[in-house]
């Protein structure tokens, strides 16, 4: 094999300051208590910046600013709100390389993905919802849909800027104002987005960014002046938020965990199915709520699929996220690495067979080799619990009914995959899968026009498309 020399994307396109404050009412300031936390590059463990940790008073200020801004923002003609969002979309496009590099630095994801997937989708999302702002009465939610007020939005670390776009774009298009809390380990792109808002001359207080840990988010979603809560993250935290919101009348949407089945039938286009399996579980280091983490292969083609899969996995390039040839970057944090490691060890203890291709991992930073477990059954913990890492559990089935039953045999219901050349089988299986997104002969595809969200414990409400407006309209 010929070796590719390193092809690192230039870091110089992004300038990271040594410290960042909160973005409240149109300007940055340090937190009231002066508490800070560090955000690190997970590929090197190098500290990227110190970031203010918002305390209760800071959150109070942010919510108050959003409430003040709501009066004028919600009264703006939709066509004017639209133009702000179009502006934001354009600025993101213009700054996309900078933001992609920033995202890869703070998150650990390969530049190929932040550049080719995250950033294009972020801009597209703002473009999509910008167009809705002056067309809401045609959206099917009544003749005069009204915004709710202040939306409290808490987002995860796996797609920091994309999740921000999924939250903020529909909220602003519908006339709501926002207080958003990015994840503790990936606060930077949200703070850069604050700067995008300033460049766009978005009125002060319409978007407020409060950085901090879980307690900041918990305080924010419980805030009495918040009318709407939107959360993407773990099912455990989602449950807590649902409990805390109970009885308050706040609107709530939750996009939570998953344990998606990726079902490969014996007549599948094998080479593309293998690509889909790889993309399903190793995209973004497997830090994807809709990851195809349970591979269900028809027993009659198991050997063939496994052989192809292993051969393909041997070509995966793990390493420097900024190298344009990297396929799998760094695990986002030491804590996440510990969880992946622990569950993988449990997989071994439970008797599943573990396999990874030869791959040398860097000495510093948080890394986990792409891994598959064979001989897994529904009774294994690695087939039931969300690992949120590059770890695939391989199970088998004999008949379509069995495949459907196993796929649905989980409290989650976010996504699923089907691989078969037979159209009628795709339609029948897709009908029976209890999952909000079904990818047939493809996987992990996203689009601003396509509603995304789960069944059962994967949460409720949809983000994206016309459906995504509903959560923000009265």
């Amino acid at each position, binding site marked *: 094999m010929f070796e590719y020399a390193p092809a690192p994307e230039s870091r110089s396109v992004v300038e990271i300051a040594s410290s960042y404050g909160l973005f409240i009412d149109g300007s940055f300031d340090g937190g009231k208590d002066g508490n800070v936390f560090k955000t690190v590059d997970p590929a090197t463990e190098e500290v990227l910046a110190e970031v203010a940790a918002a305390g209760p008073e800071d959150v109070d200020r942010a919510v108050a600013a959003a409430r003040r801004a709501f009066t004028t923002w919600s009264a703006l003609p939709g066509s004017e709100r639209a133009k702000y969002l179009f502006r934001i979309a354009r600025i993101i496009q213009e700054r996309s390389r900078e933001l992609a590099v920033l995202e890869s630095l703070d998150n650990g994801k390969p530049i190929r993905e932040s550049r080719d997937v995250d950033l294009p989708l972020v801009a*597209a999302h703002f473009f999509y919802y910008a167009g809705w702002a002056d067309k809401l009465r045609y959206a*099917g939610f*009544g003749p005069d849909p009204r915004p709710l007020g202040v939306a409290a939005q808490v987002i995860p670390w796996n797609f920091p800027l994309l999740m921000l776009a999924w939250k903020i774009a529909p909220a602003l298009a519908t006339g709501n104002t926002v207080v958003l809390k990015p994840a503790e380990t990936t606060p930077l792109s949200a703070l850069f987005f604050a700067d995008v808002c300033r460049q766009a001359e978005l009125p002060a207080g319409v978007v407020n960014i409060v950085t901090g840990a879980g307690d900041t988010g918990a305080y924010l979603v419980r805030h009495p002046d918040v009318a709407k809560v939107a959360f993407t993250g773990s*099912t455990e935290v*989602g*449950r807590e938020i*649902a*409990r805390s919101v*109970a*009885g308050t*009348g706040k609107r709530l949407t*939750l996009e*939570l965990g998953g344990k998606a089945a990726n079902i490969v039938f014996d007549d599948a286009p094998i080479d593309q199915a293998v690509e889909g399996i790889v993309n399903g579980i190793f995209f973004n280091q497997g830090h994807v709520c809709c990851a195809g983490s349970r591979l269900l292969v028809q027993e009659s083609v198991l050997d063939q699929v496994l052989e192809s899969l292993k051969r393909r996995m041997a070509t995966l390039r793990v390493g420097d996220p900024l190298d344009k040839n990297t396929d799998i970057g760094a695990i986002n944090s030491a804590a996440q690495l510990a969880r992946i490691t622990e569950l993988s060890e449990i997989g071994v203890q439970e008797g599943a067979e573990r396999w990874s291709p030869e791959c040398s991992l860097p000495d510093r930073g948080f890394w986990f080799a792409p891994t598959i477990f064979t001989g897994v059954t529904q009774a294994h913990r690695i087939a039931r619990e969300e690992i949120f890492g590059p770890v695939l559990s391989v199970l088998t089935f004999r008949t379509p009914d069995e495949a459907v*039953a196993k796929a649905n*045999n989980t*409290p989650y219901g976010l996504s699923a995959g089907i691989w078969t050349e037979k159209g009628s089988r*795709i339609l029948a299986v*897709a009908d029976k*899968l209890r*999952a*909000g*997104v*079904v*990818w*047939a*002969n*493809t996987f992990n*595809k996203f*689009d601003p*026009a*396509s*509603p*995304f*969200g789960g*069944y*059962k*414990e994967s*949460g*409720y409400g*949809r983000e994206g*498309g016309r*459906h995504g407006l*509903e959560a923000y309209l009265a």
Partner: protein
Amino acid sequence: MPKSAKSSAAPATTPSAAVTPGAATTPGAASPAAAPVTAAPLTAAPVRLAVRKTYKLYIGGKFPRSESGRTFVVDGDNVALASRKDARDAVLAARAAQSKWAGATAYNRGQVLYRIAEMIEARRAEFVALGVPDAEVDATIDRWVWYAGWSDKIAQVTGGANPVAGPYLNISAPEPTGVVGIVAPASLLGLVSVIAPAIVTGNTVVVLADAPQIAITLAEVLATSDVPGGVVNLLTGRHPETAPWLASHDDVNALDLTGVTDPELAVEWERAAAGTLKRVIRPSGATDFTADPGLRPMTALLETKTVWHPKGY
């Protein structure tokens, strides 16, 4: 969970076992003191003793007594007092019926709902005799007809093709949430206004009903319409006793708290529902059931499934 489909037959066939204790603890049912006096006809014919209705539960298409054997008196009638185990049995029956009901064609579900309207029209007098105003019976019938028509239209209104930026067919379609626990309002119109939007799209329901005589009379309508057993299950009794079991039940997908009058209980049950992230309907303030319901009663109990497929040859 997958076992429920098979084991559901057991609770559905148990009411006979409950007969004995039920009868033993309800001597009042035979007591003439509670019987309303029928006006004597002018002729000299002997006074005919009316045959009374026994108000039982409605689970899996059958009318069992409460497994607890308990009853309580409502307006002089002994009415079954449902227990948590009745709620459990009702969830099993609802789960067992759900996939087949959802799998029926939308046209078929619409026909079944329309049949319900026909049957209420035919039994109008029964509801009037229970004190339901004529106008409310009218509105109730009209509501069933309205929802009947939605069965094969709601997917077109709430779903469709999404123009994604790539060579893919991308289609979103609504699907029923599954089994819905409902704490129903007391009125007939309120009751059908929470049941109809849930079942028209393919959900099955376990309803905790107020106004037991009206609810069970509606159950008799359902039983003599073409509604498959288990699609609607009605329990009478005291909500605080049964509702928490529905709210915390792992195999219930959604909870409609429209009929809850005590806000503290509503919060408590909503919190319990968060355990499995049930979809919760909790209207703020009283609902005007005479108003146009809009789509929300249906969409709140629908999931959106989006399917992608590449285009290419």
